[in-house]
């Protein structure tokens, strides 16, 4: 994966502004609080990079806090954000029951709110989701096609993370619908070093179940760990990996010679981050925003990446225009 390709030009259909910049945005006084559940991992980092880029473009100050996986901390961060009275709040992931009391306070304080991938429990807030069921469905479609609908699969999953739980629902349904596909083992760890811990477990599972055809790892840290395991055991021709999510590093792993990771389904996290900030900005400006925004995923496979010589997310969004969604929460006064 030679990263020497020239930086790709933004591939979005450049739209011209259709409205004047609101005064508040022009003066740079807009503050938006971003309250995150997690911040580490490629997905969350790229999401943030997108959100920050959009905030810069819109001349908005983004105040970021992260619960670092501690959900109570996220709720407290949200309460603190409410006391600091920003112009809008974005809640990025989190558990509904945990953040809803604080979201109520925000609504009571008349602070506009965008909830990404979490149920805000109120009609006042705008919800933004990436379609996790669709992500799982797409990648499982690829798995079914490659395996011919039968064979042993090692599944990587840890409960308690909302997107993973949703993807898991699709997998459970898929198993019922496709009795030929057998889950021979389930593994999973989430910690600061998820990839290497998953690799160790995947190796044990692959040793115990030599006939396995595929690993379903619907989270890129899982997929990277699984890829490491397959590579270290030298099973790349026999075992294929079906993942989810996408980052520049993930593209590197997928396009490596002999990489077992053949397909992934993803949204562009940076794009989702941009959409979240745009929606919040629209709320601040008092513009009309759909109450429920969705960013659809795309299926990306190894062959496509290799054929197009893609080595970064920027190039990827050029090749898959569907990954960029400029029409979702378009800001009329900016060129996005």
């Amino acid at each position, binding site marked *: 994966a030679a990263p020497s390709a020239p930086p790709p030009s933004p591939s979005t259909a450049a739209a011209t502004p259709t409205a004047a910049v609101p005064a508040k945005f022009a003066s740079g006084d807009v503050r938006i609080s971003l309250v995150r559940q997690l911040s580490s991992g490629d997905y969350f980092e790229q999401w943030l990079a997108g959100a920050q880029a959009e905030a810069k473009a819109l001349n908005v100050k983004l*105040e970021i806090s992260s619960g670092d*996986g501690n*959900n*109570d901390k996220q709720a407290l961060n949200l309460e603190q954000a409410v006391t600091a009275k920003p112009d809008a709040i974005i809640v990025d992931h989190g*558990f509904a*029951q945990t953040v809803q009391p604080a979201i109520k306070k925000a609504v009571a304080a008349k602070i506009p709110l965008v909830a990404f991938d979490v149920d805000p429990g109120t009609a006042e807030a705008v919800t933004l989701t990436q379609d996790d069921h669709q992500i799982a469905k797409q990648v499982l479609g690829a798995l079914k096609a490659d395996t011919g609908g039968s064979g042993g699969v090692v599944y990587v999953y840890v409960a*308690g993370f909302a997107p993973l739980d949703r993807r898991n629902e699709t997998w459970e349904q898929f198993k019922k619908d496709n009795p030929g596909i057998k889950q021979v083992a389930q593994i999973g760890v989430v910690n600061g070093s998820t990839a290497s811990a998953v690799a160790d477990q995947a190796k044990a599972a692959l040793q115990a179940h030599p006939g396995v055809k595929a690993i379903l790892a619907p989270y890129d840290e899982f997929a990277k760990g699984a890829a490491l395991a397959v590579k270290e055991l030298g099973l790349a021709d026999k075992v294929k990996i079906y993942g989810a999510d996408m980052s520049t590093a993930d593209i590197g792993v997928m396009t490596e010679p002999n990489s077992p990771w053949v397909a992934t389904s993803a949204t562009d996290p940076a794009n989702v981050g941009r959409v979240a900030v745009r929606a919040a900005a629209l709320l601040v400006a008092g513009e009309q925003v759909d109450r429920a925004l969705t960013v659809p995923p795309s299926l990306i496979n190894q062959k496509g990446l290799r054929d197009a010589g893609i080595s970064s997310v920027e190039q990827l969004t050029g090749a898959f225009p569907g990954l960029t969604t400029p029409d979702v929460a378009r800001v009329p006064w900016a060129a996005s």
Partner: protein
Amino acid sequence: MSAAVQGGSRAAPSRRVASRAAAVAYRYGLLGVMAAMIVLFSLLRPAFATYPNALVVLQSVAVVGIVALGVTVSMTTGGFDLSAGACVGAVVMVTALTMVRFNLTGGTAIVAGLLTGLLVAGVNVLLTVVAKVPDLVATLGTLFLFQGLALIVTGGQSVAPGMTVDGAPAPGRYTEGFAWLGGGTIVSVPVPVVAFALLAAAVYVLLNHTRWGRALYAIGGNAEAARLAGIRVARYRALGYAVSGVCAAIAGILLSARLGRGDVGAGDPYLLQSVAAALIGFAVLGANRPNALGTVVGALFIGVMINGLTMLNAPYYAQTFVQGALLVGALVTSYTLRRIR
């Protein structure tokens, strides 16, 4: 030292002043750094020094603080409760299961949570006091055991109202009374803060003004001397772990109420944080041993800093570093001055 000798008696008065100053700085060093932080934040962000924000800070340290108070008591006897975080996690799961899965009342959930805390304490006591396994090793075993147990009772799933159990939605939900423990207020003060204050006072009195507290410290200082003096060492060590277990259980109940669900791994962050608060507390008021006041200050120290830095819009990834730097600074001042004194 040699300077002191040459100085002879003439230098004595000025040396005494210096050493008194050092003693003061030592006793109040960490408190001073905290006060400076508060003043600085207030000047930079007027919103910092407001009553609502003070409550946010207090609320952010309440749960950690309660766990840390328990850890402090277990430390007085020379023990060390690594299992406190796992206990918090187990209690969160147990309370959630009680209400959501078994559809029982909030009161029952509280009782179940406290019993879980005592169970953890019981295992610790069995290991350390009865089987004489060293404290760190024993409580590490308990940590894995209860971290594992919290996962097993729910099959590794989080427990949320409306979750599917054997194909049907779970019958129960968090009761309002229980949820009040996490989100309610008493005269505008959040319930967890009130609980923290009460427990802090109780632990302070226990450790500093009762026979039991002195016996606990005596065991920590020299268990053999305490035994030969007729102090029932085993019982007091058990008491230490029981207090730690109960505190962790209370923290778990409050956390569960705040989360509104039984979150797998909810207790994990509390081990390091509570130990940190208790250890920072060593340096408060020159105690150099586990103490209730110090632990409260230790917890507040971290809470104030994180809150203030967030308000100043310091990037979240810089906060850990600043926390480390301030902590190291405060420690170096405290302990270096201690020697000068």
